[in-house]
């Protein structure tokens, strides 16, 4: 089966060729602009061709792409300033969750994000962005800080799942997820979530019980990882691509089902080909939502959040 990664090789080769030509032209003072333009057109055709027909499984791979920008990349690219705060005040500080105070577009924000690691060492330190109970408890502390000081909350969701290990179980990972949602629901300040990459089940919704939920174009949001679904449905984890189809885990499906509010477009070739542009799009989209929410009273914000989720569900009434 052909995946998005199979297409990346020719694109990467084209990109290398373009870069080489540019350098050569600069060094020798030659005009190679026609050749460059031709190669660029070719690259764009190829990308358009690929990205016009992405299947859900391609999105899964894009959402998990090792070069995809992570929460701290977005914070760095979107915000005028950011000071990270630490700790759940209960004995732990979970590196899988980053949180702090930011200025963005002149607004004062509390940002809470799930953070993956770029290299092996950081990936392990961040536990692959799988938050432990203390990660959600740190998040809750930040939410309460936001409530007290009337700060807007922005959450950046990117996790395969909440940490399922024995330690997390023994410290109440389920309770922490539930309380995190509850804390978000009780807030009377504006809250916005952006699904950046993987919106992995309970681990994701814990931070996404917000007034607005936005998704990047190639992010996924799912009740179960496709591999897990395939193991149950087809008794074969290798059938994850089929499961991805069945689960309707793309931004497009989520929007069609009325479960998210907006899809934030990614640059051609996905976020990792142009993090700067992607971050700018996220920033613009979030600020637009905040403009809308800014007109609402504290009580109205809480009520809108309640009604937003209250309406979710598809069922029939008989008789």
């Amino acid at each position, binding site marked *: 089966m052909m995946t998005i990664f199979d297409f990346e090789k020719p694109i990467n080769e084209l990109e290398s060729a373009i870069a080489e030509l540019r350098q050569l032209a600069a060094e020798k003072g030659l005009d190679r602009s026609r050749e460059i333009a031709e190669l660029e057109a070719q690259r764009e055709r190829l990308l358009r061709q690929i990205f016009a027909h992405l299947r859900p499984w391609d999105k899964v791979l894009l959402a998990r792409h090792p070069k995809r920008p992570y929460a701290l990349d977005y914070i760095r690219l979107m915000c005028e300033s950011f000071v990270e705060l630490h700790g759940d005040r209960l004995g732990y500080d979970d590196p899988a969750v980053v949180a702090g105070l930011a200025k963005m577009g002149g607004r004062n924000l509390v940002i809470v994000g799930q953070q993956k690691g770029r290299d092996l060492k950081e990936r392990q330190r961040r536990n692959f962005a799988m938050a432990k109970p203390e990660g959600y408890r740190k998040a809750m502390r930040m939410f309460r800080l936001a409530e007290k000081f009337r700060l807007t909350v922005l959450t950046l969701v990117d996790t395969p799942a*909440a*940490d*399922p*290990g*024995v*330690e*997390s*179980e*023994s*410290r*109440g*990972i*389920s*309770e922490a*997820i*539930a*309380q995190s*949602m*509850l804390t978000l*629901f*009780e807030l009377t300040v504006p809250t916005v979530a952006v699904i950046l990459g993987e919106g992995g*089940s*309970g681990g*994701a*919704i*814990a931070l*996404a*019980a917000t007034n607005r939920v936005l998704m990047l174009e190639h992010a996924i*949001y*799912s*009740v*179960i990882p496709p591999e897990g*679904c395939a193991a*149950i*449905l087809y008794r074969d984890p290798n059938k994850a691509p089929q499961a991805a189809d*069945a*689960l*309707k*885990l793309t931004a497009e*499906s*989520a929007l069609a*089902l009325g*479960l998210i509010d907006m899809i934030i477009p990614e640059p051609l070739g996905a976020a990792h080909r142009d993090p700067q542009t992607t971050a700018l799009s996220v920033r613009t989209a979030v600020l637009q939502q905040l403009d809308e929410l800014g007109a609402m009273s504290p009580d109205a914000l809480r009520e809108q*959040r*309640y009604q937003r*989720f*209250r309406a*979710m*569900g*598809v*069922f*029939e*009434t*008989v*008789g």
Partner: protein
Amino acid sequence: MQKRAIVQANAEQWVQCARCKKILFRPDFERALRVCPHCGHHHRLRARERILLTVDPDTFEETDADLRPTDPLGFPEYADKLRKGASAAGENEAILTGLAQLNGVPIVIGAMDFGFMGGSMGSVVGEKVVRAFERGVELRCPVILFCASGGARMQEGLISLMQMAKTTAAVGRFHRAGLPYIAVFTDPTMAGVLASFASLADVILAEPGALVGFAGQRVAAQASVGKPPANFQTAEFQHEHGMLDLVVPRRNMRPTLSYLLEMFQASYAGSITP
């Protein structure tokens, strides 16, 4: 061999304990509320049995019985599973809710049914839980929920995940109304249900030996350095770790619930007597 023959011959009369495998005389077993007299194993109950066992006789009135699941994603085999679930559980969905009295106190009660698609939470379960809490606020009644669930229902995809948030929001409103919510974790209470409304009760009780946890045992073990403890993800493990108040044998469940309701009566009976 002889014993097995007896079981088959008098399937109605005899029953085998799911844990210790001893053969039990069904009338005794029923009188013991399906708790094995030999090993103490608490066998699962149907949602309706659970409620009738708990509330005052002839007080249960089912609510929202008219809600039916659909197949919004056209998910493989879902329609078929719904049919099978309905016939296995004798209910239309994985939760049964209603109004009742417990020792004379009007309550909203709900019980999940593991027999219906593993007690999984999709749109109907989410809606019925929310309506239970909304009804509690409206009538100023305590809410008691018996949980029994493998988690969110995969077959409704992201819609099921949203039920975690939806039910949590309803609990939030209920708490703000100052009313008591008691959850009982029965075998099993897992994943998306444990990680939403179940864990948010004022007081949490559990039945002995009930499986209570977040991730599947295999996943949990894989994600850990050491070996999980022998009682991992049991009610007793969660109790040791401060995640629930009491492990209550089935025979003591009704009096314990009744005591708690009495203690919290200022909140719903309106008489604040500090």
